[in-house]
């Protein structure tokens, strides 16, 4: 927190256009605090799952039940809920911009992970998938809801849409090269169905009736806590000591949580030059949050489904990077604020 204070002080001194910038900084300051608080709250939830597993109330089987219900039920409902907002020209435009940004970030990540797998320490195919994709769905929606407010969750969808389409094509191909990719497969994932349904309602400007809306939003609110409980179970089932002594794992985590996010920051900083809307800064921050999350639960599940030889290290990678991301995500956001508002 000290860093933020210092940053703000120096800003106040050099800022030429007093009032407006001051308000902006106050605003981002509160965003930072609520961001850190929300992430810390989610770490506490994961610890709760960890303790419950160690005490024998939860186990691997129940953790799987939790992650299946998070992936197939709660995440789709939270997406539909995100789309339940008024359609304005501004929102549609911002949505399309974030969609383009998400496509470009993914292309950037695909190229970068391709280069990284050939140079330096090298990456296996599974590790490439682990570095390229992150847990945008399960983590970013709750973070954005808690820290920025319900109205911004809408913009998380574009990143998730692109990432989900890639999961079922490139991601699946990297984990299970022999598996055939069919368009039907992509279209039938719950997330894509929810996005199509939600987008349809949004474009037609239809709101769900109040009762159904309540059911959808209450279901959507369960996504964060249940995903984090499942992460806690996964952590408790991982041999943490073996993981912490695996230096290659650190390298993969470093790529996922530091290197690629920093590239995304630079890219979004560039976008910020061309796009100056009223809320451009906050909306791009949502895109950034989408790209700097920890290891993807979906890739881990693919690995488990196809009995991939590296599935053990992939699941510990997901669990450990989730905990570490509690530190790196605020740091990346701070970096973004520093470069884009100076």
């Amino acid at each position: 927190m000290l860093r933020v204070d210092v940053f703000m002080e120096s800003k106040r001194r050099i800022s030429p256009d007093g009032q407006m910038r001051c308000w902006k900084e106050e605003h981002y300051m509160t965003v930072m605090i609520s961001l850190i608080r929300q992430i810390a709250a989610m770490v506490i939830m994961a610890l709760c799952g960890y303790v419950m597993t160690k005490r024998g109330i939860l186990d691997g089987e129940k953790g799987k039940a939790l992650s299946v219900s998070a992936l197939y039920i709660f995440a789709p409902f939270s997406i539909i809920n995100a789309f339940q907002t008024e359609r304005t020209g501004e929102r549609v435009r911002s949505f399309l911009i974030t969609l383009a940004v998400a496509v470009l970030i993914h292309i950037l990540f695909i190229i970068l992970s391709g280069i990284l797998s050939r140079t330096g320490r090298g990456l296996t195919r599974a590790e490439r998938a682990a570095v390229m994709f992150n847990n945008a769905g399960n983590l970013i929606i709750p973070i954005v809801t808690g820290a920025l407010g319900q109205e911004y969750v809408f913009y998380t969808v574009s990143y998730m849409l692109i990432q989900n389409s890639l999961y079922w094509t490139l991601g699946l191909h990297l984990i299970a090269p022999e598996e055939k990719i069919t368009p039907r497969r992509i279209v039938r994932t719950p997330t894509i169905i929810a996005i199509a349904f939600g987008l349809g309602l949004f474009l037609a400007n239809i709101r769900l009736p109040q009762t159904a809306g309540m059911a959808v939003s209450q279901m959507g609110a369960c996504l964060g806590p249940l995903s984090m409980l499942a992460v806690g179970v996964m952590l408790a089932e991982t041999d943490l000591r073996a993981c912490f002594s695996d230096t290659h794992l650190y390298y993969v985590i470093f790529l996922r949580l530091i290197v690629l996010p920093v590239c995304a920051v630079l890219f979004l900083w560039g976008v910020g030059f061309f796009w100056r809307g009223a809320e451009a800064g906050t909306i791009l921050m949502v895109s950034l949050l989408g790209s700097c999350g920890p290891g993807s639960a979906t890739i881990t599940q693919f690995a488990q489904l196809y009995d991939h030889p590296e599935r053990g290290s992939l699941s510990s990678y997901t669990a450990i990077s989730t905990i570490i991301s509690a530190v790196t995500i605020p740091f990346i956001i701070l970096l973004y604020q520093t470069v884009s508002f100076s």
Partner: protein
Amino acid sequence: MSVMIPLTSQIAAMVIIALIGYVMTKTGILDNEKGKALSVVGLYILAPLSVLSAFQTERTAEKVTSFFITWGAALCIHVLFLLLSGLLAHGGKSLTKAERALVMFNNAGNLIIPIVQGAFGTEYVFYTVPYMLTQNLFCWTLGYHLINPGRKISLRSVLCTPMIMSICAGLILFLLNIRLPQTVSTAVSQMGACLGPVCMLAVGVMLAETDLKKCFTDRHLYFLIFLRLIALPLCAVAFLLVIARFWKGPETGMILMITLLGSIGPGNATITQFSMLADHPERGKISSFTAITTLLSAVTIPMIILLFRSLST
């Protein structure tokens, strides 16, 4: 009337969630095993946390008084239900021990907290605690005994239930007027808010696994449902109307209504779980009773509340 609309729409929203659970089970995404996992998470993690979060409110003399009055009322209602179900067990269409437990206890914890939270706001969840505390004490002693007549009940097993522990912790924090740090309370309240959806999904799974056609033809089951959802709630209404005569505070009506909500819920999930754990011969009937009463309660709860409100004013 202003209270009735959020109440009804909250209950309807919960029925929709149960239907989602039903559909998800029929399409094969959820199954019995996953439903059980959800109800364990609800019972052992989310419900205690939502109680804990209910206690995170400022201590005022008025709240303390209301708390103890509702506690007294909850005790009296339990004794009343105990006597009534005892009378019913001996007279007329007699009840088995397990059926007595079913009629006596209801799903206060899993359903009433989300209903009160959604319809009236988090600050009123506090007043659901006295009823739940009493019911949990009865449930883990008398209820356990009715389902497992042979087994001994130790004080330790009662005190070590997550619910009782969290009530104790919450009550102590409340009486000392200590608030949890904001990050912890964010975590606790966000987890507590999952209680309703998670439990209703589990109910949906239970419904999908029940042979509904067979249940709807069992006349004795209708009698049990009538007792649980109409007869006993009417007795509770009469009793609370008497209390309302003597206790006149600013929020008396609301607080007594929450106590009433505690006593008129559908079949109890804890009793169902006891019977599953004990492999009780009547467990099929018990779980279908719980599932069906949950659906029917969407109609009976608002009616009972409407009756109470029109009689008390």
